[in-house]
């Protein structure tokens, strides 16, 4: 990968990777740090990473850095990995879905985000998350079932 291609990766993928991280950890500052670390790694390995696989590399690196970050913080501060959203204002289905997303386990959340946000194939998601294709499908299936259950529950409450 050339320097020009590296800068092109920043233009093309930094926004989507940043959204992926923010959705997963709900902390834009930490997401920025992780993204910077991710692109630093990409620069250091630019000779080995082809431009066509740069996006996959960025998301893979970002995800694993994020997981390490979450594990480190949970050990350090004993923070639960999932947080409960207490907001009761549901203006549209997307907000409800976003709140429902927070209820999902990390691996399911990452899987469905990569699928829906970035349109990755199950195989690519498996590469990024270091899972088999079957495991990715199971995670996504379970994630969508839980999302529907959450929405149905909210509808019942409202």
């Amino acid at each position, binding site marked *: 990968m050339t320097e020009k291609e590296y800068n092109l990766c920043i233009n093309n993928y*930094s926004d989507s990777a940043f*959204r992926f991280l923010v959705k997963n950890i709900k902390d834009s500052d930490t997401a920025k740090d992780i993204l910077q670390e991710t692109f630093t790694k990409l620069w250091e390995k630019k000779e080995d990473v082809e431009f066509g696989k740069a996006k996959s590399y960025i998301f893979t690196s970002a995800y694993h850095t994020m997981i390490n970050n979450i594990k480190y913080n949970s050990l350090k501060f004993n923070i639960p990995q999932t947080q409960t959203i207490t907001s009761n204002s549901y203006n549209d289905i997307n907000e409800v879905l976003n709140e429902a997303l927070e209820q999902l386990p990390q691996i399911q959340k990452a899987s469905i985000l990569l699928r829906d946000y970035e349109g990755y194939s199950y195989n690519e998601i498996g590469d990024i998350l270091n899972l088999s294709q079957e495991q990715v499908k199971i995670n996504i299936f379970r994630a*969508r079932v839980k*999302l*529907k259950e959450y929405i149905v529950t909210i509808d019942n409450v409202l």
Partner: protein
Amino acid sequence: MITKENIEAYLLDLLEGNLSSEEIKDLEAFLKENPRYKEMISLYDSSLVLMADKKVKFEDKESLKRNNKTKAFYSYIKYSFVAVAACFILFIFVSKLFIKPLDNTTIKTYDKVMVQNTSNSSSSILSSQSKADKENTVKKQKPISKNNTKTLAKVEKPQEKEIPLELKEEVKSEPKILLSNNMVVYEVDNLIAYTQEEELNEKEIIEVDNLVAYNDTQTTNPLLSNSLLSPLINNKYVYQLRHNLESTIEKTQNRVNYALSFIQDNIKYNPFEFTIAKK
């Protein structure tokens, strides 16, 4: 093979239409044996797709970018300017050290010689070159004019075999240096002649390479016929100096002779008396 562990993956493929007919048959057979998994199909809603919020953007893209070439380019430009400036300063310094300013003695081409000839004799032209160049120049010179009219000549490049002569502007002759007591000093090829200002006759002034000499047509001394010396020898004021000196010498000799004769006539030489007187 469909198992309880991977049934959800098969259900996902079924709902997304990714199963072959054989896989569908296998799935149907599995669901018959395990009917509770059929309910999971109704729980799945493929329309629940998460939409990315495009407003969320990473703002610090530029901080991540690498611009080594750009930096190198600007660095190159900066140091190039410094190098050019240094070379310019060095050039000026060296040129001041080794390049001497041109003066009349170093100009060897296009020496401009203006002559006003007032006699039938050959003109007195002397450039401001070295002695060797002077000789060459004089040898190559042609007689300018034998008429008693004003003639100007321009001598170009003394190195050339034939020196073109062109009529030019009139001679402007001015005394070079004015001294007190109405004395005027003329410089002829680094030699100086002087006279009283009243004696100047502008029509007989010769200007050679901005040096002024006076052309004395009355000079007839054969010893002074050397063409190299002609500008100086023909100079009236030099001649007067020489004449004054000769007359002074002559007067002095006359006085000495007179004194000797006076002594001889009036004092009788007596060696004995002289010795006494000396004591």
